């Protein structure tokens, strides 16, 4: 979970860059081996995040036909006077999908921020005279 304290990079206030210094952005866009490592890590993070979201949809929403197929008595269940399947697939599912999407956007943007900080921060450490 995101609440677990993570390693935080503590840096000083932004410094003026000296001439001739270069950030790692070049490494990423020019595909040096180091840039490749950075990018592969970002790609893996984002893909893992996407797979996690899809797996969540898989075991909750997509599993429903199988569950109803295996436990036919579920179709007798009523919630607020409506059949369970109608409550789940006609209403509850939409806020659920929205919630998953919202969490995904937050985490994907955080991954990108961490990546951007990493690429830029590296230059400041290394470029110090």
């Amino acid at each position, binding site marked *: 979970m995101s609440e677990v304290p993570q390693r935080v990079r503590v840096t000083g206030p932004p410094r003026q860059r000296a001439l001739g210094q270069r950030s790692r952005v070049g490494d990423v866009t020019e595909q040096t081996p180091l840039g490749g490592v950075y990018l592969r890590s970002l790609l893996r993070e984002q893909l893992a995040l996407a797979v996690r979201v899809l797996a969540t949809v898989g075991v909750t929403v997509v599993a429903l036909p199988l569950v109803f197929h295996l436990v036919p008595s579920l179709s007798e269940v009523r919630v607020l006077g409506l059949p369970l399947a109608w409550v789940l697939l006609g209403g509850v599912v*939409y806020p659920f999908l929205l919630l998953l*999407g919202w969490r995904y956007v937050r985490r994907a943007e955080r991954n990108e921020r961490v990546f951007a900080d990493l690429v830029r921060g590296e230059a400041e450490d290394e470029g110090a005279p």
Partner: protein
Amino acid sequence: MSTDAVPGVVAVLLVSAVTLGIGTWGLRVSRTTSDFFVASRTVHPRLNASAIGGEYLSAASFLGVAGLLLVGGAEMLWYPVGWTAGYLVLLVLVAAPLRRSGAYTLPDFAEARLGSKAVRAACSLLVVGVGWLYLLPQFEGAGITLEATIDAPEWAGPLIVGTVVLVNVAAGGMRSITFVQAFQYWLKLTALLVPAMVLLAVWWDDGRPPAAAPDHWSVPVSGGGAIGLYATYSLILATFLGTMGLPHVVVRFYTNPDGRGARRTTLVVLALLGLFYVWPPVYAGLGRIYGKDLVAEGRSDVLVLDLPRLMVPGVGGDVLTGLVTAGAFAAFLSTASGLAIAVSGVLTQDVTTPLLGRRLGRPAAGVPAFRISAVAAVVVPVVVSLVVPNVGVAVSVGLAFAVAASTFCPLLVLGIWWHGLTDVGAVAGLAAGGLGSGGAAVLTVTGAIPSGWGGALLSQPAAWSTPLAFVVMVVVSLWTADRAPAHARRFLVRLHTPEALDASPGT
């Protein structure tokens, strides 16, 4: 019957006039070729999301879902759920990278990613094919609606919708269409929501009579044991994965300012679709109480249009009928416009601009080429819908999703996440998925399908054709690994790197 037609006529005229009005207003700010195609990429996420919603909610959503639910019950809820969940899949797998690829259309993406004219041609062919397959039911639905509400001859609907769409698209391109589409989402939501509220109040006043429904109505799986389970999962796969491959949806992602904007837009779309899709089940439930004759007569498609008059007598019923007719008409107009834009965009780049250039002996101007393409994009499906007998709105739309899931979905997903995709692999996968699902579609439409497993496999092909396309694409790519484009890694860098890094590398 003549006075019954008044609210419908007024609604159709009003929606057409407002659509053309907003379209003309958009013309004043639409000047360059870039404006025509992708609104110069400056559309705000909220406006863009409304436009996507307006474009996406077609006749199948506005009329078809309620009718399907009325007859089939809970198993049909997978249509609206899949059409919404498709955007979550799109969000997590393709939204931001697709925008960052910087391409105008799907063929542009394929060519930029794989550096191959052959893949580009295959994609152009598929965009036009899927687009026309999806336009056909829009025009047919328009005919059915006008026949049901204002007693017009069946050819009137396709002709009216086709004309309005053509004038709008040819005049303003996508910028004006963005405003039109956004307006039409809210019109459709109002046209579905307000009558639903009134009808619920009427039902409450009646002492809340219970719905008389058969047992299968509360089971979210098709009947028939394992075959039913297969059919349900195939539908889920087609709708969840097909959304990202619909040409009129994908083209909208290029109008976002950046990758972040693309994600935010998709999120708002998820909310807007959820807000819309909770209402068709209300119509289906009330239809089980007040509209039993519709099921018996096999006219469930007009449930949304007929229910207000069945429940509310007099002027109130007429006003509500006018409102739902306006919503249905907006649904045809907006989806048809979006598809026409996507198809004409591809035709402009790959057919009319080169042809015009050759004829004139110099590079052709973009805007005239776009207008000629728009005519072709609209006229072909209108003529087909007038000549060919009805295929059925839900059938055509479902098959369009299955074809999109079996072709563009593997191309986009592998192209964005796997550097090993090659041009030969992509063409092989597109061919396997396209011929598989497309062949099944042709057999289904012509009615040459057996019963039992064979029929299920042909009428719901996505569950086998999509994995087939993925496997063929990967295996053939591995086989031809030496053909992987040299710039593949660099391209992936661009797709996954936040724009903030490009824009201001030094700060």
